[in-house]
């Protein structure tokens, strides 16, 4: 990286911080204004990065950076979210199962274990509505969604490359598919810790609700649970297949040119939309279309399906993806120079950066760093030999700590938006961060002592 550019990059991180502050503060102080002007704010902060960047590096490089991030990062990200949002919105559960601490513990445990097999986003979208529905009779329920984000939207995804994109990247770079199952003891340990804390909090809230006279409608003997739109599970599997293909196809010779680059449609300069990504997008959009075409509108109505949540995520994450580029550039340039050599350092550094930045590039930076340390034993990756403990720390840091903030992982904000839209008063950006500080950070400290010393 040129000297002038390196000196300038930290300043270019200001728009990213500015956008995050807007997301954190404006909904609290000017809620309606913020709702009306989200696209404008995202565009304004993006321009505040792109224009100075273009002035220093040239319009061509700025355009390339912008298109690279939009085509290769944002597009696949939002299409996947969109597909899962559509398909899961077409599955509805009705019945009179009453949300209580033990039911909620069961739902969270189920969702967590499901995350690794249908992805954190898939599990979140599939489970969030039933969780909201069963707890509709209660008033104190924001903690349920917060723990849902902790467990289902993040931690649960650590066991397979399908679970979370960083692990898929690791798989593409030589980490065996089932290697991540080694994180099962860490996941179970955290699951037990968090569910114990959750049970206590939920029991307190449940008792307060009962004491206030709230009660579920259980007047009929026997529980009736009806699932409608179950054929959409086929489309869900199609989307998961698309994600797996996007990770495996680039390794096949048919998808590589003579120079070893992934073949694709040239967009601008070096930027191209790879064929594997294109196949993924087409498959996901097809699944979403078929899901809509084959599901009666009454199911979506019952689910209170609206475009509000996906629209909000799509708008805000355009800004987040663009403005976080300088921070990622800084990380790529300096990650190896941070002097990180111990698993606990990898766990915390990867984790803290994944809390605010995209966890996929963060994972790759530290995997590269670990691979360059010259170890002779461990897992052989495209970046070199990485000791098992080190790889566990990087993987767990990237996956687990995405739960620290609303923007740490794709489904977090989506779940928040759906909950907001359905009568649950979710904590603000900082409010959620306080939950993470109070509950997740102590758990991660225990993890460090037990697993990553």
């Amino acid at each position: 990286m040129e000297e002038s550019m390196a000196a300038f990059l930290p300043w270019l991180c200001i728009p990213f911080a500015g956008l995050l502050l807007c997301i954190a503060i404006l909904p609290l102080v000017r809620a309606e204004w913020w709702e009306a002007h989200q696209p404008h704010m995202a565009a304004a902060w993006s321009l505040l990065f792109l224009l100075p960047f273009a002035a220093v590096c040239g319009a061509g490089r700025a355009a390339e950076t912008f298109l690279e991030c939009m085509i290769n990062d944002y597009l696949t990200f939002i299409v996947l979210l969109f597909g899962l949002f559509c398909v899961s919105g077409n599955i509805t559960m009705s019945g009179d199962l009453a949300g209580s601490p033990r039911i909620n513990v069961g739902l969270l445990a189920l969702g967590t274990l499901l995350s690794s097999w249908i992805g954190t986003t898939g599990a979140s979208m599939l489970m969030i509505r039933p969780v909201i529905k069963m707890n509709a009779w209660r008033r104190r329920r924001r903690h349920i969604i917060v723990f849902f984000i902790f467990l289902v939207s993040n931690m649960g995804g650590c066991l397979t490359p399908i679970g979370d994109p960083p692990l898929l990247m690791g798989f593409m770079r030589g980490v065996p598919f089932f290697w991540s199952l080694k994180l099962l003891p860490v996941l179970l340990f955290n699951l037990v810790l968090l569910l114990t804390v959750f049970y206590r909090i939920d029991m307190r809230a449940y008792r307060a609700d009962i004491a206030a006279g709230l009660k579920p409608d259980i007047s009929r003997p026997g529980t009736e649970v009806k699932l409608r739109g179950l054929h959409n599970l086929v489309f869900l599997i199609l989307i998961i297949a698309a994600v797996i293909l996007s990770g495996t196809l680039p390794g096949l010779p048919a998808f590589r040119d003579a120079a070893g680059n992934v073949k694709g449609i040239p967009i601008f300069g070096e930027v191209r939309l790879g064929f594997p990504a294109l196949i993924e997008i087409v498959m996901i959009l097809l699944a979403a279309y078929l899901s809509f075409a084959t599901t009666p509108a009454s199911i979506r109505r019952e689910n209170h399906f609206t475009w509000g949540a996906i629209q909000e995520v799509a708008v805000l994450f355009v800004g987040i993806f663009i403005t976080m580029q300088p921070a990622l550039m800084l990380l790529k340039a300096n990650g190896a120079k941070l002097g990180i050599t111990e698993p606990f350092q990898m766990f915390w550094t990867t984790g803290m950066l994944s809390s605010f930045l995209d966890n996929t590039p963060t994972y790759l930076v530290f995997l590269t760093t670990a691979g360059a340390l010259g170890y002779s034993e461990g897992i052989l990756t495209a970046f070199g030999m990485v000791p098992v403990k080190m790889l566990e720390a990087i993987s767990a840091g990237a996956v687990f700590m995405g739960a620290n903030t609303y923007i740490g992982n794709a489904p977090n904000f989506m779940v928040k938006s759906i909950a907001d839209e359905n009568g649950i008063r979710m904590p603000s950006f900082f409010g959620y961060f306080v939950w993470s500080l109070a509950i997740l950070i102590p758990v991660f400290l225990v993890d460090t002592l037990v697993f990553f010393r």
Partner: protein
Amino acid sequence: MPIQMQDIKEMAEHIYDLDAEVYCHLGSSLGRVFNRDRDRCVKELVELLTTRPHGDLVRSELALIANMARTIEDKEERKLCMSEYNRILNAVMSLPTSFASGDVIDPKTARLNEFNLQNRFSDEDHLIICISWTYGSGGIDVGFKLADRLKINYYDEQIFTAVLKRLDAEKDSLRDTAGYTQHVKDEMDQSPAKAFLPDTRKSFGERIREFSRYHGLSKRDAVFFNQSDLLCEMAKKEDFIVMGRCGDRVMTNNGIPHISIYITAPFKQRVHRAIEVNEGLTEKKAHALLKKLDRQHASYYNFYTGRSWGHANNYDLCINTASYGIDGTVEFILRMINRE
């Protein structure tokens, strides 16, 4: 111009109606803010609106309704709902910051629990007396005699039996944890160790059936919710005395006028009575039994009401039966409610 209670009530009704209208347009109860009956929700809203700083909570509830309203697809309907939301919000914002009159009276408690019976019970309300008592204080006898003198129904275990019918459950599979009969029977009949043995004999199928029967809730919770429903239904139809079962709190939560009475006696006195009425009970055992029953009932009451069992603040009247005797206590209560 000072704001009248009628205005506040109308405001509360408008808030409830707006929520109902939004729900009607969306057709999904997923996020309905007020999902209980109108009267009760309106009463709660009036309380929130008149008790600052809780008035802020109303704005928060309104914001949730607005979140839902913004997702209405039809532009015209959405506009109408949002206009109504803005109108209500402005009205809420213009409320004074305090309605304090300087009196110590808590309107909610006074309306339901003050011993001003002429004001408390309207012609449409039934006479409902909720009695909590400590084992050995003669509470059951007081309740029974009182019902006899007032010629109204007396309910204790009968509630539990009715709940079994509602739940379509076998009597052996459930314990009446809200009353004393089952507890005392358990303590007298079984060895203490047996009471703590886990129920391991159920097959997987039975467990699934049980899970379905109780809607995923614990048996105790399912019974409590059904008891509450039943008490509220009965309160619409008849006068009665209900023993325990957190009846006082259930009535308060549902805005049903009632009289709550706590009957107790000094511990030593209760031990003597327990020995008298339970053949074969030694003093040592009676001592331990009473301590345990008190602990269990305090825990039960606290779990479902969030209040302390036996705390004078929670009742209209607390009586020491050792001072009046059973008949004297009945006379005393009758005089209090002008039904001698």
